[in-house]
């Protein structure tokens, strides 16, 4: 895995378009979701991720990636998203009412190794964790995640109260956290070295 990482970095430096395609295939969706998490708008998120890749392309010869490419990309998307918010304060509904330092808190801590969960085997465990949730809990989690339904819509659809939805969502996330706890610890530990 280390080798392929290094190989990929070399291909990027040489301006190999296929290497970029590999990166897109592997990380595009994940990176968009990270950007969306910060800027809260899908089309801005896509643009941010594209900009990051274009930038990497433009400086490809001078680029210096010491750790993994994924970590590098996640960091770049994180920073670009924060910059984007700073430049477009007016356009963002959420940040209207918040000041700069506030939304930086809502983005994640720059020391936090986001993206470690985004590995095939761990994603499988996550999926497994989701399927192991109690039925009602699972249904609500999936509705919210897969169909982007608002709590009130879920409550309507299932004929339950909005508070029940909230509680079940909390349980779902807490359980998943429990499922993934060991992995998070290990990953944090590894990053710490």
């Amino acid at each position: 895995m280390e080798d392929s990482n290094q190989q990929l970095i070399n291909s990027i430096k040489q301006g190999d378009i296929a290497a970029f395609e590999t990166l897109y295939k592997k990380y595009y969706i994940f990176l968009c979701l990270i950007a969306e998490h910060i800027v809260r708008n899908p089309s801005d998120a896509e643009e941010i991720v594209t900009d990051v890749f274009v930038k990497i392309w433009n400086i490809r010869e001078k680029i210096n990636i010491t750790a993994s490419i994924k970590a590098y990309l996640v960091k770049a998307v994180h920073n670009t998203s924060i910059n984007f918010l700073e430049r477009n304060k007016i356009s963002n509904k959420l940040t209207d009412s918040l000041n700069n330092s506030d939304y930086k808190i809502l983005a994640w801590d720059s020391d936090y190794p986001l993206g470690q969960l985004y590995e095939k085997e761990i994603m499988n465990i996550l999926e497994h964790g989701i399927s192991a949730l109690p039925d009602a809990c699972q249904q609500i989690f999936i509705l919210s995640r897969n169909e982007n339904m608002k709590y009130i819509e879920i409550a309507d659809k299932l004929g339950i109260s909005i508070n029940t939805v909230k509680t079940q969502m909390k349980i779902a996330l807490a359980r998943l956290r429990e499922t993934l706890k060991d992995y998070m610890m290990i990953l944090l530990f590894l990053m710490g070295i």
Partner: protein
Amino acid sequence: MQTKENNQSKENLIPGYLNGELTAEETRELIVWINLNSANKHYFDEYCEIWITARASLKNPGYNFQEGFWKFKQKIKANEDLQIGFNKTIFLKILTRYAAIFIVTFSLSGLLFYYIGKNRAAKPDLSFSELIVPKGSRAQFFLSDGTAVTLNAGSRLKYDNRFGIKDRIVQLEGEGYFKVAKDSKRPFTVQTSHLNVMALGTEFNVKAYSDDKTIETTLVEGSLKIEEITDKNGTEARVLKPNQKLTFFKEDSTMVNETASPKEKTKKNTQPLQVHKSIVIPRLVTENVNIEPVISWKENRWIFEKQSLLQIAVELERKFDVQINFESERLRTFRFTGIIIAEPIEQVLEVMSISAPINFKLKGKVVTLSENKNFEELNKRLYKK
């Protein structure tokens, strides 16, 4: 005890935040809670990560890497074009199997154009690209921003090298189907003789042939804003929803009532937009339509819904570059409903002559349509109201 409960309730805000359902006030409360200590912050980050990863593992998380990669390729290409100073216009990638497409590019160097780009060191020459699709063919291609365009026969699309820098403007004469690449900063505008059609990320069809009396805009997906081009400022913009068609009548409304009658639409869903200005007879009409017939030209399928033979003839003339003559006046008003999957023109005419009382003669590029008298019996049954 009090603080612990308080703590608990703030933590409960996290799922709401992830789902984008918190008010500003609640968001602020959450931020205060996150700021209390690094453990809270860490806890919050973990939740975010689970959420993002859970969404990324979806089959359809709302993003498409191929689309993204295409945009990336177009962008780096555009950058490199910029660096060589627009010597060549390499904007188009032709993906068509129809050979008869002319691309005309020309450059107007030396002419003074007002150029708005701020960050550019030198004024580049303004160059145009024009794609001309002659009658009898069809073209499919991508613009530099990733927007997919299909042009119908006898159409032309024109744009200059400022396309994609600040905004995305194309000029259309004829019929085109646009699948616009998402870009919230640079709206996509199709300019026609009378209307500007503005989109962000949508799919729509514009039919604006200069020899048609109407301009028709049909929205398949997303949302569209349409403005009439007039001298006076502040014309109202119309907003179109999916499965709606906006018809603009170029001529004075009194004329339209006559000329538009052969292709009269089902009146059920028709509602004049300018209801509040009752004196003005609407030149813009919005109606709900079935999308399929409108965009069927893209594939070699022809879907007709109660279309007059006259209207069909106009489209056949464009598509196959032929001239169609009617031997009988009555024939023009025959209405035709059906699907034809056929090419070349002989086959299309044959299919039509089987299902309607039409005889056809094809000589070179001239088609003559006449009534099929033997069809009379069936005709009576078919066309009796």
